[in-house]
């Protein structure tokens, strides 16, 4: 039985939340989860139960759910020991609660008896009409409701990425990346044991959720591969889905007489399923997050012709190598008319080819002007922009070196910082105007995130890639989705 939209709305947009098992001990999950709900700006009513009725974090608690007003809470966040849960859930259902997130351990992950209890839990929740998420899960985040019902940090910035994970650790990882880059999250769920609500159930909800435009999932231990394939196919038809898969599935009995059987390994089969379904598969956590963040913040390219624009030589060369090595992207030959146009803006020492290396010949407006020429050219599908923030990095040193603001340093520092902010804004504006992806990459995004270059990329809502290679990898994922849809006569959006 699949969870309903109404049940998911009870999970993500509850009118009120009950923390069951709130603790006065700040080291306990029942304390931390109440703290996180209260600290993150949730606007609905917050209730908490505590056996002694002791106040926690300054709010009064209920000794039992009997004291809960009816119809004021939709979600119960369960931190109680396993044995208390059946009665708790019955009482919750009687008060109109329609979704339960269980952090409680000792179920299916804990052997035979735990599996029996988990089966009973599933049957009970189905009977009560309560959406069961977990058990043994880390929590749920929903930024449209400012809800952070989790036993761990962080609470990420709001955005368009919906996270679903079989491992709570990866929910934290993806949200930490969100905090680091500023590219935000709409919803996030750690599915725990996924007793009744699976990662693909959650993705199916995201596909029809107005707050979510990209799915980001971590999966492991796939049992019903065909169900997973069907769900991912449906979801990927609606929105980009990025999947990271951990571990090899158990081999099971294979056809011994078959040569192909030995070549069709689990990993190759999963990979082929992703390609067939139009799902983006990522190998690492940073690749997965950056692919999702790129889908969330850049338009899909119509083709694979990439131009690199750089203010310095070596970066451009290595980025051109990365594009050339990529099996699906093409380092576009610079069209003659584009070269002639750029010629009017730069002294003759510029590269006159792709990468477009300005070679230090730029004046005040050159970067936005040349970027616009490149991006608007019909022979170019995407741009990688390198060199942002160099001058502001020097400006930082000038500001902090003990001579500022004398010796004319105040003016030059302000000029450099203004220029880098302008360039970042230009990349955003020109991408919007042309409908083409423009990816900005610099390690300054990590080394000095307050640098006005990367900081402004972030302020425009886009991702500033920590290296050109990572920008190229992310762009490759965008192009593959675009190509997948074009080949199947689907709109590319």
């Amino acid at each position, binding site marked *: 039985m699949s969870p309903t939209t109404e049940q998911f709305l009870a999970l993500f947009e509850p009118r009120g939340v009950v923390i069951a098992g709130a603790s006065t001990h700040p080291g306990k999950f029942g304390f931390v989860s109440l703290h996180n709900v209260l600290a993150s700006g949730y606007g609905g009513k917050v209730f908490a139960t505590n056996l002694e009725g002791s106040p926690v974090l300054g709010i009064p608690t209920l000794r039992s759910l009997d004291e809960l007003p009816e119809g004021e809470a939709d979600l119960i966040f369960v931190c109680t020991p396993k044995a208390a849960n059946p009665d708790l859930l019955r009482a919750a259902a009687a008060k109109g609660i329609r979704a339960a997130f269980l952090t409680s351990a000792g179920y299916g992950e804990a052997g035979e008896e735990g599996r029996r209890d988990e089966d009973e839990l599933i049957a009970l929740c189905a009977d009560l009409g309560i959406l069961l998420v977990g058990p043994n899960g880390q929590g749920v985040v929903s930024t449209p409701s400012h809800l952070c019902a989790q036993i761990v940090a962080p609470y990420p910035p709001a955005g368009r990425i919906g996270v679903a994970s079989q491992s709570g650790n990866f929910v934290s990882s993806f949200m930490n990346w969100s905090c680091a880059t500023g590219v935000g999250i709409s919803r996030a769920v750690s599915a725990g044991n996924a007793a009744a609500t699976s990662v693909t159930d959650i993705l199916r909800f995201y596909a029809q959720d107005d707050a979510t435009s990209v799915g980001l999932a971590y999966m492991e231990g*796939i*049992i*019903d*591969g*065909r*169900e997973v*394939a*069907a769900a991912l*196919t449906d979801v990927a038809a609606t929105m980009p889905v990025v999947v990271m898969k951990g571990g090899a*599935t*158990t*081999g*099971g*009995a*294979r*056809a011994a*007489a*078959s*040569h*192909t*059987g*030995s*070549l*069709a390994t*689990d990993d*190759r*089969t*999963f*990979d*082929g*399923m992703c*390609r*067939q*379904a139009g799902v983006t598969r990522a190998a690492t956590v940073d690749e997965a997050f950056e692919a999702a963040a790129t889908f969330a913040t850049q338009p899909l390219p119509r083709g694979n012709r990439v131009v690199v624009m750089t203010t310095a030589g070596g970066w451009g060369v290595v980025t051109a190598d990365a594009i050339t090595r990529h*099996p699906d992207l093409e380092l576009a030959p610079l069209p003659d008319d584009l070269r002639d146009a750029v010629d009017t803006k730069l002294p003759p020492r510029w590269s006159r080819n792709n990468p477009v290396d300005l070679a230090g010949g730029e004046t005040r407006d050159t970067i936005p002007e040349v970027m616009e020429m490149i991006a608007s050219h019909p022979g170019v599908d995407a741009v990688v922009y390198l060199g942002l923030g160099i001058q502001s990095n020097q400006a930082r040193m000038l500001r902090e070196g003990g001579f500022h603001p004398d010796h004319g340093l105040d003016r030059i520092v302000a000029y450099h910082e203004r220029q880098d902010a302008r360039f970042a804004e230009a990349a955003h504006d020109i991408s919007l105007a042309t409908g083409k992806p423009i990816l900005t990459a610099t390690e300054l995004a990590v080394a000095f995130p307050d640098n006005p270059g990367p900081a402004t990329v972030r302020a425009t809502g886009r991702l500033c890639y920590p290296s050109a290679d990572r920008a190229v990898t992310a762009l490759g994922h965008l192009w593959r989705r675009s190509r997948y849809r074009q*080949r*199947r006569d689907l709109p590319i959006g």
Partner: protein
Amino acid sequence: MSHTLSEAASKALLAGFGVPIAPERLVDSPEAAVAASEDVGYPVVAKLCGDNIAHKTERGLVRLNLGDAVAVGAATADLLAAARPEDAVTGVLVAPMVSGDRELIAGLATDPQFGRTVLLGVGGVLAEAVADVSVRLVPITRVDAEEMVEDLSSQALLGEFRGEPALDRGSVVDVLLGLSATAEAVPDLVSADLNPLIVHDGRAVAVDALVELGGAELGGAELGVSPS
């Protein structure tokens, strides 16, 4: 228990669903082998064919490059004499000798989680070491099949190669679509090997086939989900 089909029966099954197979004749005597060779054109290959012969090459049951009636007659007599009762021999297969420097492998397999899959890989004796392979779930579309060819890393092998023309990708696509159609129509098919698919004059030609049936007890039945 699963069981394998003879090469002739495997090819007949797959050909019925559009897998392109080189023309061949199943014969039961040296005289008939000579007549068949004249029919399909010299040089030919002669192979002992039976329901339980899975590893013909290892047992010397494949005779290549037979150029005339004398060679065909002698080889056929040898092969029939080499048959063991347990081979369940149905005859000798005579087929035109197909040669090419490039070999691919294609087939069907049953994955415990994902059910039946279609596979395409770079073939030959190094296939397992090279492991340049693309997999999809049954059923596949033409676009899926085209993308499988594109997935192979060894793209240089698929272009013009040592004086041979570039691979006609459509010929591989036809093989893959035929395999997928076979799996859809035959629910208890466990696996199929087209090993090798020789690239001859730019076209992929299946010169051997092995189909394994009896998959119901392996739990390999998919749910009929169409991934496109």
